[in-house]
Structures are given as C-alpha cells and as structure tokens.
C-alpha cells in the first residue's frame, strides 16, 4: 500500500501549510515536543529505575509507577499532538525517511507495551509479581523509549 498520497495531502492541508509556511512555527512546536519528551522520559525513567532497584528504593514501587503514569499520559498526549503537527509540516520528507518509520514502529510498540502490558501489570500488588518480571518490564520499557527518542532525533539528521 502506497501511503505517499496521504502524506502529500497532509502536507498540503491547512495544518501542513500552517506549520511549514512560517519559519518559527515548526521550531516552536518542536521545542514544546522536546520539553514534553523530557517529562515523558522522566516518568519512564523514575518507574523503570525504581523497578530495577536503582533509584527511589525506599519509596514503594507502586507509588512511583502510579504517580509517574499520570505524567507519562500527559506528556504522551502533548508529544502526539505536537508530533502530528511537526509531521504535517514535513510529511513528504518523513514518508521517505527510514528513521521516521523506525520511530513510528517503536512508538506504536511503546504505547502498546505501556497500556496493554506494563500498566495493567503495575496496577496489581507489586509484591505478588516476580522481581524478574518487573525487571524485564523495566528493561523493555527503557529500551523502547530510548529507541523512540534516538530515532526521532535522527529523523532531522537524515
């Protein structure tokens, strides 16, 4: 299936034109995207480092994951909205960009993992879960979001 016509239509849409036509628009949206990235990363790191026993060891892991998840959701929504606007401005370029597709695949997996596996698991009593499971979940989550961030940064370089 060739998605290029959809990408071209998005770039030609009022949203695409709005983002692309003024130099500072794209940059400003990009800057908000970066701030939200720091927040999302902080929420992911706090939870995962706690599950790995690296940070916040004397705070119950459920307290950490519950609180962090709230901010994870807020950051994710901000990232998705700003990300969509950024995409609209440079959709045709993104369509042919290898790292864009790597990021989309990692992002899709990351969201699925966070809401279908990680969060349902962490909502349970952590004492009932095996420490190995918790550590594996943390490692998978860290790897996924690192890939999302790094491949995202690389879209602009390639």
């Amino acid at each position, binding site marked *: 299936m060739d998605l290029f016509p959809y990408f071209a239509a998005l770039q030609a849409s009022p949203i695409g034109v709005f983002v692309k036509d003024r130099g500072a628009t794209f940059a400003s949206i990009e800057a908000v995207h970066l701030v939200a990235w720091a927040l999302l990363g*902080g929420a992911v*790191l706090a939870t995962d480092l706690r599950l790995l026993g690296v940070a*916040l060891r004397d705070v119950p892991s459920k307290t950490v994951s519950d609180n962090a998840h709230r901010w994870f959701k807020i950051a994710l929504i901000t990232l998705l909205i700003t990300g969509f606007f950024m995409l609209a401005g440079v959709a045709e370029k993104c369509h042919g960009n290898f790292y864009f597709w790597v990021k989309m695949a990692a992002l899709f997996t990351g969201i699925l993992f966070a809401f279908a596996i990680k969060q349902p698991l962490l909502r349970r009593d952590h004492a009932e879960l095996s420490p190995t499971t918790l550590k594996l979940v943390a490692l998978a989550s860290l790897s996924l979001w690192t890939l999302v961030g790094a491949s995202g940064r690389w879209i602009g370089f390639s």
Partner: protein
Amino acid sequence: MYNWVESAHVMTLILCLGMLFLIDLRMLGWGFNSVPASKIAERLDKPMMIGFVAMFITGIVLYLGIPVRTTQSLWFRIKIILLVAAAVNAWLFRRHMQASVGAWDTAPVPPRRTRIGAGLSLTLWAGIVVCGRFIAYDWYDCGKSDNTAFINWAAGCVAATTP
C-alpha cells in the same frame, strides 16, 4: 560526529530534566504527594546530577564544534542567561528547603514560597530547552541583512556567520 554528540545531549535530557521535572512537580503538590518532599528531592538528586554533568559535557563539545556561530547566537546568549537564573533559583531553593522543610515535608502541597520556586524552575528550564533548540535555526545569524541593529548588538556580531 556532531550528530552523535547532539543526540547524546538530547537523550540525557530525560535524565537531567526528567528528574528535575518530577522534583518540581512534587514541590508544586502535583505529584508524589504521599511521599515526603525531601525524599523525592534527595533520591532523584543523584540521577539528575549525573544527567546534568552529561548534558554539560556534551554541551561544551557542541559549543566547541561550532564556536564562532554559537558565541554570536542570540538564542545561545539567552540560554546562558536563563541557565544562570536557573542556577541562582536552585541555590535559593535549596537554602530555603534546608531551612524549612521539616515543617512541611509530608504536606501534600508545600507552602507558597516552595511552589513559586518550583514553578520558576520549571519555567526557566523549559525556556532553556526552547532556546537550545532555536540555536540550530539561522533566523538572526550575524550577517543577515534584515537583522536590526539591536539584534546585531544583542548577538554580539563581529563576524558574519551566514554566507
């Protein structure tokens, strides 16, 4: 090579600012309310500082990679001013916290002064990220014919950085 250092700078953002944001959110009473404020601040301080050192080192390397243009960048200059302001704010915040935290450590919402300091910290650091990202754009590069005299003065233009 520049791209790798740049990416490292962006990736360590989540360690440095990610932890800072969580600490500030606790100080605003917007998260981790059941955990004593001092505990969040102390436990996340180390990862935050590791992230800060990594950002500082990669930042210096990025600066040295493009020194003339960066020195004459309006955004870089604003970023440095905001960094100094954030440092002063952090120092005042730490002093205020050491003096008074005993009285409000377990309060879900800390006192007004703490919240103002945390809000200021969040705002300053968001501004630092924005300015940092804007350095990459050439809107006000020295040598641009449509720069006003004020822009050229504020950017400290000596040599043209745009062809």
